[in-house]
């Protein structure tokens, strides 16, 4: 059984610290080239097909701005 996941990042709350990137086992997340209203390069799902919904990114996110969704397929 395979797992597919997806994350939704609250772009305005994200401060682009990059802790989620460092803890993503599948290198799904990257920092955007654009910035939010505070000037931070927010995190986003750069390669959505590799996300397994493991919740590592949201677990370590200091600003609680990641929501994780997961389905079994």
């Amino acid at each position, binding site marked *: 059984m395979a797992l597919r996941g997806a994350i*939704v990042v609250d772009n305005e709350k994200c401060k682009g610290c990059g802790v989620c990137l460092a803890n993503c086992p599948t290198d799904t997340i990257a920092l955007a080239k654009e910035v939010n209203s505070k000037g931070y390069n927010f995190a986003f799902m750069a390669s959505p097909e590799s996300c397994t919904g493991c919740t590592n990114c949201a677990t370590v996110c200091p600003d609680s701005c990641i929501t994780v969704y997961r389905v079994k397929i």
Partner: protein
Amino acid sequence: MDIKDIIKPENRVYGKTPLLTDNVMHYCPGCSHGTVHKLIAEVIDEMGIQEQTIGVSPVGCSVFAYNYLDIDWQQAAHGRAPALATATKRLHPEKYVFTYQGDGDLASIGTAEIMHACNRGENIVVIFINNAIYGMTGGQMAPTTLIGMKTATTPYGRDPKLHGNPLKITELIAQLDGTCFVTRQSVHNPGNVRKAKKAIRKAFENSMMDKGTSFVEIVGTCNSGWKLSPVQSNEWMVENMFPKYPLGDIKDI
């Protein structure tokens, strides 16, 4: 499968707990305070004790903790959070009372209060964030600063002959008969975040069992004060902080 089919309410597995307010935290990017606030919020939410919890916020960066956790709060003078928590718990023994303190607050100006509160065995929870620096005031040396560590007030590194030695206050507190649970955790990776959450939950449960004080130290980062990026500070912490402040339970009775 399309992303839109995955992002549905029924597939949600993790997200912000409603106990955290929608305020954007004022902490620097990557600050450990945010992660620890989240853990406390999740523990309170999971235990269903939002109405019965009173926090005491310290002086330091985390003084604004009351803006982020939707529970009752008090704010103490420098280092006096354990004294205030003692009074709160004695007046309201049915409440879960915890203090949230940094190392400049707890290990320096508040040493007397924390020692005596722990020695009396007050049934409170103490969350102690140790980042080896005074974060809010601009990165000065704290009692917990490592030997050789550069700070605003030790630009050539901490010299034990001039500045004294790093204070391992958690080990000192474990010696006191009033404490029942003394542990040191960290929140730099998912595994450690989960362990830290378990420790915080256990500490909250202990506070209703009349066993004494529960003391949870979280070794954290202050990337602004350390002059490193958030990810680099986590690596620096593993390399330099953990040999001096090893993780694990020090006392559990």
